[in-house]
C-alpha cells in the first residue's frame, strides 16, 4: 500500500486516543452534589433532628 495510507491510519489512531483521553479526563473532572454525613462515626448517638 502507499505510504500515505499509513500516515492517515496513524493520524486516525492518534485522534482516537487523544479524544478518549480527553473524554476520560472530562468524566474524572465531573462532580456531584453531596450531602455530607452528619451522624458521628462509630458511635450511635441517635438521629440529628
Amino acid at each position, binding site marked *: 500500500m502507499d505510504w500515505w495510507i499509513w500516515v492517515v491510519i496513524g493520524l486516525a489512531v492518534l485522534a482516537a486516543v487523544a479524544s478518549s483521553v480527553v473524554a476520560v479526563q472530562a468524566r474524572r*473532572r*465531573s462532580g456531584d452534589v453531596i450531602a455530607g454525613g452528619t451522624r458521628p462515626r462509630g458511635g450511635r448517638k441517635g438521629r440529628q433532628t
Partner: protein
Amino acid sequence: MSTYLRAREIREEPVVTLAGEDIAQVKDIVFDPMRGTLTCFTLSGRGLLAGPLKRALLWKKVHALGPDAVMVRDGKALEEDDQAARESIDAPGGGHVIGARMMTEDGTVLGTITDVIIETGKAPQVIGYEVVSTAQTGRTLFLPVIKPSSVSEEMVVVPACTADFSAGDVVGLPAAAEGLRRRLEQET
C-alpha cells in the same frame, strides 16, 4: 438582593483568585443537609487534560460564591489535601442527593431529587430541592426544605406537610419556605 443558584450549575465553575487567575474548578459541592449550609468543594484542574485535584476548598476560605465563579483571596485558600472533604463525604448519614428520593415522614414519595437550590448572599443557604414528581409524572416541583428529618444515600426524609408547600419555579420557593416554616412552628 438574593439570587438563587442551582447546585448542579456550580459544578465546573472556575475558582478564581482576586488577582484574576483561575486556579482550579469546582468538582463536587458538599453541603450539610441538616443545617442547609455549604461545607466545602472538591476540585479539579483546568484544561482538557486535567484530572481531579487532591485539594479541597473549605467554605470558610471562600471569598464569594456567584453564578459565574467561586472567588478566593489567593491560592493559599485551597487546602493542601482533600482530607476535610473526604471526612465529610465518608461520614455516615449523607450521600449523593441527585437521583435520591424525597419521602415524607408518613411514607409518601414526593419524587426524585434533580437539583439543590441555594440562596446566595453573605451566608448561602440551601432553601429547597428540585424534584421530579412521581405522583404527577414528569412534572418538576420545587420543595422547600428547612430541616430534613433524615438523609441517607437513597433518600431525604422530610416533614409530612412539605408536600403542601411546593412551588412551580425557583422564584416561588422563598414564599413556599416561609409557608412551611410557619406550619412547622404551629405543629411543634
